[in-house]
């Protein structure tokens, strides 16, 4: 009943003809057969503003678009149920200056952001971002987000790494979860319609303009074009290039960035991937910084607190990237435990005592029980750095619009790169990035849609047909083994981790290029033994793996060319930052033949002096 309801609403609100409405009953091909007879591209469902993604960025964009012009049809697509995003996993908090009494200011926030990003941040953007971030906190509070409170009843804040002042606003240790549900409620309140279980396969750019996307209705398997006057990509990051060594969700597969590459758009700073020092050994789930903040210590296989070797004055509380490198160094030099992807060091909190652990670190203890099958109260836990965030993303022109160079196409949140985070993101900055950029993208996409016309849909049609036959080809042969795809995915993750992880060198990166070629060949030959169109999650994973391979290749291109160490990009063969040659963004594109190209774009420098990043 209700499934029809939403679909009906969706089409009613925006549709040109009702022909393709019943994709699920008449079949996509029939819908196309009907439409090809008419010249005005009828038969394709369409809407004014189409948003892909339901993290904070997508949800804020939807409300902003609705508010900008309630007459526009706004549809939000997600490959999963709306609240299953990366946003919901964030724990620590959301930055934004709302208290100026201790000398904090928007400028200081911007300055910390620029420095944290190791000066690869566009400074004008950072300044505007900090201003919007402050306003966003009040707005969220007003929308009903239950922030933790200080003694005066104001939004409470805590310290986040790399900040010179305390400005990380939080809602217990579930800030992202609370934010997600605040935004979801607000979207429901504003009558936003969702198309869940719909997978965006590609975006179509015709004559330089975005004309819509190819969607696969995962429920039915129907692959259909959807035309839109403006499209916002809020698809999140691509950290799953390290498959099992990331704290992020299974869905963080860079679908947006990969689609942008295929459509000829620019993937900016793809080599910039952040690592968090403490993920659990099995599966990379995050153990928050609080474990070390509360007094947890790191031990190698000699039982040493090895941080004394690296940062004796800060020990375990040194910045994230440094702790992460120290741990990897111990493992590399044989002072870790276990082997290969299962190597680890120990994080010990046992000395804190049961009571303190239960009171202050219950979540972390729970994660230890779930993933390592052990109790932190009794034993140290096996940990290793884990990929945590994608600074790189779809290139957009400026924070003012979040528009990509292709008119009609916008990007927001972790999927986008306007360059707020540069080479390293500060804790607490990404939730407010998603909130702020989502809203801007929504407003501007609506504004654009008010004036724009639909494209012809011709290229979109072709792309759709291509995907339809691709599905048949990949799943219809009856060939392929159960584990082929999963084995390839694991291997890709491991190869990226070893060669493009925390330590990068020329020789490892070159070796990885060969691996990527091999993986791509294997991928192209991959066959999925499941031809059922209905909720074929194996095919979804197949598409995602293809996207991850593309993102890996782009990241590798940037990582190889960037012969310096900056932020999270650490080259053992070029230990120093090189502002002379690399104070610029890497801009990766792909041509029709699948070949990638690299160009550079200067970083915008403003009021903040470029200096050594020292804490």
């Amino acid at each position: 009943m209700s499934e029809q309801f939403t679909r009906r609403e969706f089409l009613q609100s925006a549709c040109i003809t009702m022909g393709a409405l019943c994709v699920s009953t008449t079949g996509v091909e029939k819908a196309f057969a009907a439409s090809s007879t008419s010249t005005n591209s009828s038969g394709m469902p369409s809407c004014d503003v189409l948003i892909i993604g339901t993290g904070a960025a997508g949800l804020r964009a939807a409300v902003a678009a609705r508010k900008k012009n309630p007459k526009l049809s706004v549809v939000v697509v997600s490959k999963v149920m709306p609240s299953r995003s990366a946003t919901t996993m964030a724990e620590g908090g959301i930055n934004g200056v709302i208290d100026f009494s201790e000398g904090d200011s928007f400028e200081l926030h911007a300055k910390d952001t620029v420095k944290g990003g190791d000066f690869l941040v566009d400074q004008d953007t950072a300044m505007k971002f900090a201003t919007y971030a402050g306003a966003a906190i009040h707005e969220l509070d007003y929308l009903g987000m239950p922030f933790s409170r200080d003694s005066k009843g104001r939004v409470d804040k805590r310290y986040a790494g790399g900040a010179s002042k305390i400005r990380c606003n939080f809602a217990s240790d579930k800030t992202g979860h609370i934010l997600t549900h605040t935004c979801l409620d607000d979207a429901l309140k504003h009558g936003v319609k969702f198309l869940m279980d719909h997978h965006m396969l590609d975006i179509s750019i015709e004559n330089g303009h975005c004309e819509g996307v190819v969607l696969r209705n995962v429920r039915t398997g129907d692959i259909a074009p959807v035309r839109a006057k403006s499209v916002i990509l809020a698809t999140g990051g691509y950290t799953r290039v390290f498959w099992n060594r990331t704290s992020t969700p299974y869905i963080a597969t860079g679908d947006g960035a990969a689609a942008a590459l295929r459509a000829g758009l620019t993937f900016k700073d793809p080599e910039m991937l952040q690592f968090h020092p403490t993920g659990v050994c099995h599966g990379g789930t995050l153990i928050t910084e609080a474990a070390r903040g509360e007094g947890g210590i790191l031990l190698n296989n000699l039982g040493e607190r090895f941080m004394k070797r690296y940062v004796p004055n800060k020990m375990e509380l040194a910045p994230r990237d440094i702790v992460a490198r120290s741990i990897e160094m111990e493992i590399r030099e044989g002072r870790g435990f276990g082997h290969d992807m299962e190597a680890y060091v120990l994080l010990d909190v046992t000395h804190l005592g049961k009571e303190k652990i239960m009171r202050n670190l219950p979540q972390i203890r729970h994660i230890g029980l779930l993933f390592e099958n052990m109790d932190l109260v009794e034993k140290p836990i096996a940990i290793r750095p884990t990929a945590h965030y994608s600074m790189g993303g779809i290139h957009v022109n400026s924070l003012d619009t979040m528009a990509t160079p292709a008119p009609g196409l916008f990007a927001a949140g972790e999927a986008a790169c306007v360059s707020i985070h540069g080479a390293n993101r500060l804790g607490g900055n990404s939730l407010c990035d998603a909130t702020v950029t989502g809203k801007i993208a929504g407003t501007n996409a609506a504004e654009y849609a008010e004036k724009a016309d639909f494209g012809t849909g011709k290229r979109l049609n072709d792309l759709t047909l291509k995907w339809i036959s691709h599905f048949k080809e990949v799943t219809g042969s009856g060939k392929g083994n159960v584990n082929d795809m999963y084995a390839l995915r694991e291997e890709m993750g491991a190869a990226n981790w070893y060669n493009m992880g925390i330590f990068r060198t020329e020789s490892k990166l070159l070796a990885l290029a060969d691996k990527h070629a091999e993986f791509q060949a294997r991928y192209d030959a991959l066959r999925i033994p499941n031809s059922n169109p209905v909720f074929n999650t194996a095919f979804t994973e197949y598409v995602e793996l293809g996207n991850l391979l593309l993102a890996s290749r782009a990241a590798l291109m940037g990582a190889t060319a960037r012969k310096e160490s900056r932020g999270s990009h650490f080259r053992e063969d070029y230990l120093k930052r090189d502002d002379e040659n690399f104070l610029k963004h890497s801009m990766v594109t792909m041509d029709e033949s699948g070949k990638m190209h690299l160009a550079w774009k200067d970083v915008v420098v403003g009021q903040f002096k470029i200096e050594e990043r020292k804490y």
Partner: protein
Amino acid sequence: MKFIIDRFDGKKNYQQTYTVEKQDIEALTLLGTLLFIKQHLDLTLNFTASCRMAICGACGVRVNGHAYLGCDTKMTELFEEYKDADTFRISPLANYTVLSDLVVDWEPAIENLRKIKPGLVAKDEFSEKEGCRQNQEQYDRIVGQWDCILCGVCASECNKLTADHSDYMEPFVFTHAWKLANDSRSKDPMIHTKAAVMNGLWNCVHCHECTNRCPKHISGAEDIAGLRALAMRKGLNSGVGPAHAKSFYTDLVEDSGRLNEIRLALRTEGVSTVARAGTAITLMRAGKMNPLEIFGGHEIEGHKDLVKMIEAAKAANKE
């Protein structure tokens, strides 16, 4: 050991048995086991998961007829609960439409969330520019309900939904209404409460499955009770449900201190009600009920003191 999984391929339902070595899965979570089966035995098996750390709500499934959050349930816990059974039955959440294997349709639930008017309507003293104020106590009051991850585990077990979902909603929908109605920043709790009343608030059968299964220790049933009390306090007390609850209270406080079954029927549905009169007659015929009780039972010993106590509590907690 064996896992019998309820499958649905879009056309037909069937069961499929997978044989797995216990040692391969005993250190895993329930979600880990499903991933193991998918990646090693059968990639056509469909289920959903995203965060694998009990916060996104994607991975609810039923084991032996009871709903669990897959990534938050260790296999060892299941072995313990089911006394080392060597066969487990895994099924999709109940009370949802199954789309495929263990995947269910969330759209109707999202539409139900719309019904209780989600989103805070803040008091006039607050503004978008300066946000709100809320003290610790007011925050603590609602924060537990905000833990809901929309996993659907409660709804899967809800006996009322199973019987008839046309006049009811998922327990978590009521929890969402509760958290808005009880937010100190909220302008008017009745916006959400009224919507809850109109959409089945009084139809909960008190089975407490929701309370029992929620991985986040939320009690839908208690939130429903809270909303009912709020509705009654605000004068939204007409109808069979409120009258029913009220008669228990009346017997407890105003009358004898004990419940009178016949008065209950009469107070709930009115003297003219034929339906329940039939029941009363059944009871009388079976010799269970003294028809004279209708004119008032015997007051319990110490009832006056009980009334005093309750009055004192009421006086102390007047809003």
